[in-house]
């Protein structure tokens, strides 16, 4: 079993508050892992720690077995780890095409055409990102992470604020890319329909701890998970 990305004992404190408490996570090559949990559970914090956004977190991050804990976000990106953000995080004044092209320069001048086609951004190529619709901006945000076919993709609620139809569309694209490119995905998502439809495995976070981990069926049947999270959905 090859692990694409692994976190060991990940911990993150804000003052006296522990947002992430000794969390272990291990994702196999090519897997789509769902990361769910109530608001404030520490999902974004986990992605921040894995991607290097959090400063001085506790624990270890291994990318394809190599310790990257001390690397900067840009170094992790060059080694094949990419992420998107919960709040849209794009280059508002640059055109869609220009920012994708710039993103490609960091990863050996990767092909930007394929990303534009996969995410249906071609018609918007010349528009400044600030001017395109919210849904388009979310796809652009994802596209920025996808340039250069990263091996590990950390996605923080890529479908946040999208319509049901758009979310399912996005889920289909992700599933498809994971299959074709063999990219490993950690997906934070509140919509259970999306999660259950594309994820191979699910990790449930609650109050900064890993509450449960397993297949969709296992997680769905887990009484603690129902109590802590799924129950509140109904």
């Amino acid at each position, binding site marked *: 079993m090859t692990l694409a990305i692994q976190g060991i004992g990940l911990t993150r404190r804000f003052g006296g508050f522990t947002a992430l408490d000794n969390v272990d996570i291990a994702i196999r090559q090519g897997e789509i892992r769902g990361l769910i949990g109530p608001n404030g559970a520490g999902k974004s914090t986990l992605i921040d720690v894995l*991607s290097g*956004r959090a400063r001085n977190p506790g624990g270890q991050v291994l990318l394809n077995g190599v310790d990257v804990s001390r690397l*900067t*976000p*840009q170094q992790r*990106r*060059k080694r094949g780890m*990419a*992420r998107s*953000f919960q709040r849209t*995080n*794009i*280059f*508002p*004044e*640059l055109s869609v095409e*220009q*920012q994708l092209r*710039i*993103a490609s*320069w*960091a*990863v050996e001048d990767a092909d930007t055409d394929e990303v534009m086609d996969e995410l249906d951004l071609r*018609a*918007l*190529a*010349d*528009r400044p990102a600030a*001017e395109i619709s919210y849904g388009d901006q979310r796809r652009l945000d994802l596209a*920025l*992470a996808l*340039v250069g076919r990263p091996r590990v993709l950390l996605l923080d609620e890529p479908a946040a604020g999208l319509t049901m139809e758009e979310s399912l569309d996005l889920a289909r694209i992700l599933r498809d890319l994971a299959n074709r490119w063999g990219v490993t995905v950690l997906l934070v998502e509140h919509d259970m329909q999306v999660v259950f439809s594309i994820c191979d495995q699910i990790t449930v976070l609650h109050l900064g701890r890993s509450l449960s981990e397993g297949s969709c069926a296992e997680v769905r049947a887990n009484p603690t998970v129902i109590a802590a999270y799924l129950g509140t959905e109904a």
Partner: protein
Amino acid sequence: MTVAAGDVAPRVKTRRGTPLLLVLGVAALVAGFTLPWIAPSKVAMSLMAQSLFDALLATSVGFLVRQNGRVSFGQAAFFGLGGYVFAILVARSLVTPEVALVLALAVPTLVAFLFGLVVARVTGVAHAMLTLAIGQALYEIAFRWRELAKGDDGMSFDLPARLFGLPTRGLQDPAVMVVLAWSILVVALLGLKLFSQSRTGQIAAAIRDNEERARFIGFSTTLPRALVYAIAALIAAIAGTLQATYNGYIAPQMFHWSLSGAALVMAIVGGAKFIVGPAIGAIVLFYIKDLAGQFAEYWPAIVGTVLVVVTLVMPEGIVGLIKRIGGLGQRR
């Protein structure tokens, strides 16, 4: 290419090629030789030269705003530094005039680069205050350290007879200086344009736009930023060295925050979003001041009014307004 249906007008991309840019540049250089004939008198020519020094300084601070998204209230620091390094080295014959010139440009550039490395993450008011502090610190040194360059009296100095084998007498002749300063301005603007189209320039623009995301798509964000500080300082240093050479005189006012502030106003009035904006703003303001003539004592009030009007009516400055009018015309 099809354009998605909608209420947005199709955006026609007019990416001017580099060849066209070079043609424009050469035309501007040639046109520069007519400047001495346009000016009605020596005094007018001298004013013209001064307006071109201003244009270079405004270009410098405008470029910082455009490429780094940073506002500086101390860009005159590099202007003064250029002038002082050159004048002091030449006056004391410490090095050959050629070395003095190189150092006059290199020292401010290097200082700005280091400054850029250190303050890369500092934004907004804190950044403005830091730049102000640097300018004023140098001003105080120049003002108080009499042994350096006669303190607040300022220091006259004689140009070396020759520089790179060429006679220097012409450098204090307004007709020559106008053509020289104009040519340097044109080359500087071309250089900045080419830089902003280069990879590093585009990466710097991305960093300005969203530093965090720039890091997460794989770029180190400190170096491109520092480079922009250095380039901006180089242009300010060129302006300062030119002015010192032309006047044969340096004074602490070359560092003063009021000069930095004036340059910033010129950049904003002309349109800091555009590479030529600040230079146009500088020249326009310079001639408004000249026209104001007897009202010159109210100059600060006039500038204030112009600034308010520009900010409210044309937030992208003169060039922004011209482009907008041009754009409306094109749409038919």
